[in-house]
């Protein structure tokens, strides 16, 4: 049960994760789940990032909640979400580059880096705004490190 103070601070439609021109429900479930996981990252990052930017007021309880969510999502085992043949060249509706399967160990390491950065963020996000702000870069950097190599440009 979300506390009223937190509920009030939430605004709808923070994150728009568009999969252009694709009927999402027709995609393979693994790809849908990947997109869902990314959308969960984005929603929680949106709450945290908007506070870090000063777009919304800092709310310690909400920051703790969103950062705990993010850390939990980032720490889930994803081995079932990335089957062979679900890359951008083979499957519709994905921008995952085939390179993921050529260097799976590195891909998994980059995924672990996100879990580490998100856990570090969760440790400080509920303390104060400065803590939240200082740890956002690590999470953003982990997102970018993987997208740099393994995601097809739009």
């Amino acid at each position, binding site marked *: 049960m979300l506390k009223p103070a937190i509920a009030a601070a939430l605004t709808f439609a923070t994150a728009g*994760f568009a999969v252009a021109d694709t009927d999402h429900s027709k995609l393979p479930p693994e790809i849908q789940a990947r997109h869902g996981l990314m959308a969960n990252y984005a929603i929680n990052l949106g709450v945290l990032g908007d506070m*870090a930017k*000063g777009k919304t007021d800092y709310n310690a309880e909400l920051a703790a909640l969103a950062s705990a969510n993010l850390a939990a999502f980032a720490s889930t085992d994803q081995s079932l979400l990335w089957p062979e043949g679900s890359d951008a060249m083979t499957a519709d509706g994905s921008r995952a580059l085939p390179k993921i399967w050529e260097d799976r160990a590195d891909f998994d390491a980059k995924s672990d880096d996100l879990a580490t950065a998100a856990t570090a963020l969760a440790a400080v996000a509920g303390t104060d705004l400065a803590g939240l702000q200082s740890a*956002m870069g690590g999470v*953003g*950097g982990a997102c970018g490190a993987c997208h*740099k190599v393994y995601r097809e440009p739009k």
Partner: protein
Amino acid sequence: MLKRSLAAVALLGAGAAWWLTAPTPLSHATETALVTAPADHIQGEQVFWAAGCASCHVAPDAEEGDAPLLAGGQAFASDFGTFYAPNISPSEQGIGGWTLLEFANAVQAGVSPDGAHYYPAFPYTAYAKATPADIAALYAFMQTLPLDATPSKAHDVGFPFNLRRSLGGWKLLFGAPTGPAVTADDPVLQRGAYLTEALAHCTECHTERNALGGLNSDRWLAGAPNPNGKGRIPNITPAGLDWSDIDLMAYFTTGLTPDYDSAGGHMASVVQNLARLSEEDRMAIVDYLKAIPAVADQPSDP
């Protein structure tokens, strides 16, 4: 008689072309300013990150740590062939034996120590605008980076682009691209223009090119096709970039977009570099991007 004078004209023409396409080093005044500038490593490190050297010159998929190994080897596809970034670590295979003036001529005039033209995949037309003090500082910093012995890989470029001498003609036509003038008495805007155009070389990807690879100054930063084939590099003039100052600052620091996607591809490297600059410098870039003329997408742009 006529034949002979025609032959003479042709010979003169060929001679003139040979002379015009000769690699031209930096001016004496610039060289003097370079050798008298202090070897400031700290400033050089900031120049190094602002100029994004590591993004192209680390080995494929290598991390750009605090002291990156500039082994080279990354491939860059273009309409003219595939270019491979060379080793620029301070080793024998890289820039180890180079003097400051050889280095500056490479970076700012596109001329190698043995007097050949470099291909403009190396953004020397942007770096040409950098100050001698920044180039001297960059040289000093790069001597402190780790050595790598990987030999540089030859570019895979077909005829006629494999004739390096022809690049002399290219430089005459396109060697000094200019962006829109920004207010001369606003130091922040001036700094933003300097960072964007001279060091961070944003125009190299975000400005479209003509058939010969020259930048189109009328469409400065208004977006371009992605040379890798897929997608389009976005318009970052105010006509295409409607992010707030706060959103841009957050993007340049964390790589997260206003809707909390992240930068990808080469832009992820760019953001990693920008995140290492001072907040003032990032803000100057934001101010510059907000101040340049809005250039609408062309009807053919998707």
